[in-house]
């Protein structure tokens, strides 16, 4: 086991400088940061912003770090978003997860779902794609020391 650590250490040290000093890697960091800072045109008063659940899923998220600006700019805005109800969503609840695909295979990553709260209606499982309109909130929400959601949406009820 000890020898394996040394092998890893040496391999890493030999290869690391070429990457650390690689201009391409530096450009990658800059490009990724630029993507994160991409602007979303602010909506005119009362307008609804169309947001893509796939774009939210693709956003870079680091625990404890600020979300990309284009996402934090959406906080408190009225949005329209499509997605699927997480598979097996029970009936009669006031909240559910909206996901890009109905099955996330027990590996629910924080930036892969929107926590939806229904203010008037209750859940019933709808297979297939649904589109919701409501108020979007972004940022880490913690319970018992664990982050339970990054993206949240408050809407009245499910589509008919």
């Amino acid at each position, binding site marked *: *086991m*000890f020898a*394996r*650590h*040394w*092998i*890893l*250490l*040496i*391999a*890493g*040290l*030999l*290869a*690391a400088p070429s*990457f*650390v000093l*690689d*201009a*391409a*890697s*530096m*450009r*990658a960091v800059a*490009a*990724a940061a630029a*993507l994160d800072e991409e602007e979303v045109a602010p909506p005119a008063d009362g307008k609804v912003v169309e947001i*893509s659940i*796939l*774009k939210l*899923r*693709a956003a*870079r998220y*680091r*625990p*404890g770090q600020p979300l990309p600006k284009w996402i934090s700019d959406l906080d408190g805005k009225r949005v329209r978003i499509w997605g699927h109800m*997480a*598979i*097996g*969503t029970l009936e009669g609840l006031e909240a559910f997860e909206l996901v*890009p*695909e*109905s*099955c*996330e*295979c*027990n*590996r*629910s*990553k*924080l930036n892969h*779902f929107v926590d939806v709260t229904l203010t008037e209606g209750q859940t019933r*499982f709808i*297979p*297939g*794609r649904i589109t919701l309109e409501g108020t979007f909130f972004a940022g880490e929400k913690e319970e018992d020391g*664990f*982050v*339970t*959601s990054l993206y949240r949406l408050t809407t009245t009820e499910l589509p008919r």
Partner: protein
Amino acid sequence: MILRTFALVSALIATPGLAATQEDAAGRPARPQDVEKIDTFIRHARTGSAVIRPQAAERLVRIGAPAAARLYELSGDSTEELALMGTALVEVLGQFDHPELRAKLWPALEDADFPWRPAAARSLAWAPTGDEWERLEGYLDDPIAPVRLAVLDGLFRISQFEGEEPEAKALQARRKRVFLDHAVSALHDENDMVRRRAAVLLDARGHGRALAWIVEELERVDIFFDRPTGLTARYDAMNVLTERGVDLGDYVPELPSSAPAGRRSNAEALARIRAEVATRAERMDTRLPEPLRGLVPTELPAIARAGAQVGGALLGLELKSCRKGEFYLRWTEDDQLVVGYGNPARIPLTEGTTARLVALSKETQAEVGAKVYWGLPGCDVESYRMPRAKGPADLPQQLIVSKDERPTADLRPAALSELGAALAASIPKDTALTAADVRTRELARRVRECFASIGGAVGD
């Protein structure tokens, strides 16, 4: 422990593509009071919500040896007992410096019925030992795509080791070379995630030409009924290329690859990205030893090309099993069976097959009434799409059966079993029709096995 951490961190710096997938575990260090919470974290990792389980498992990894000792006590003596720990814990067992705990992962991977094989494979691939090379190689053709992907990662890591003695140096030189062959083979994998990872690993080894596989995905337009599989791939490809230092400029995944004059499209951005990646690949190629140049083919195989959208799909069957793999099947109005997504394979069907199955699907809908879902949340899913018997024709009806890792009796209603049996029976067994493409080879048998592992056997 410090040495192990430093070694892993330095190795990960050298492989940015891998570092990006594993950064979640590199959080803050464990606090002394966390040690007292080991059992609490284990409980959260086993029974918490899907989003909390991996976070609790990562806390255990940060605690280190005391957590590993406790997990070892709880891991039992069989794969059945190990399975009870749940996927989040199996996922991290290989991250502990605890050989006995690690040894429990191999029987899990070897057990075709272990419910968390992808997690076991990723766990093993996190910090593999040199003597695990051959065992990992044995899973390069595993039926489960995430297992194949994890195996590639594991082999990549082992091939990074440097030997000290001449014999060990020679062995590692051979492994470096063999790894490249495995990765080039994986560029032909039926699963887009595996192809993408192979391309990233080859690029990390100086074979920049492999990024052409990912650039191609920027043009994918495929959809599977209401699932924009192509758009999802475009976002994934965009992230991968950005991490590899490719400047995507004003490429926008939501825009088409080309459009009539005056309409916005990605045409110019794509042309520039292709040129940049080609120039970068040529530059990287010159730095490779002569025998390794041109290892990655210049032409993409059909399976990796961005295909056109499939028209006229009336029926769909999506099967996902953590033990038997995934299948995406469509029956079209002109009697073709379309297999997979991206650039799918096609098998001609006997004339009238789709119409007969559509008629049966309407009977199924009449039998099940308003109910659309059966089972429990979980990874094992059967999803049937069909024209609605009543209601808007452009909105397919979707019926879903799902379950967790436990066998569940009488899960699928009889009417849906009858439809499943008919769909399975319609898959041609004629090898002249099915042998040409990896996705269609022995498809009928594999689909039946997948059905059996989820909602139970269908038909004969």
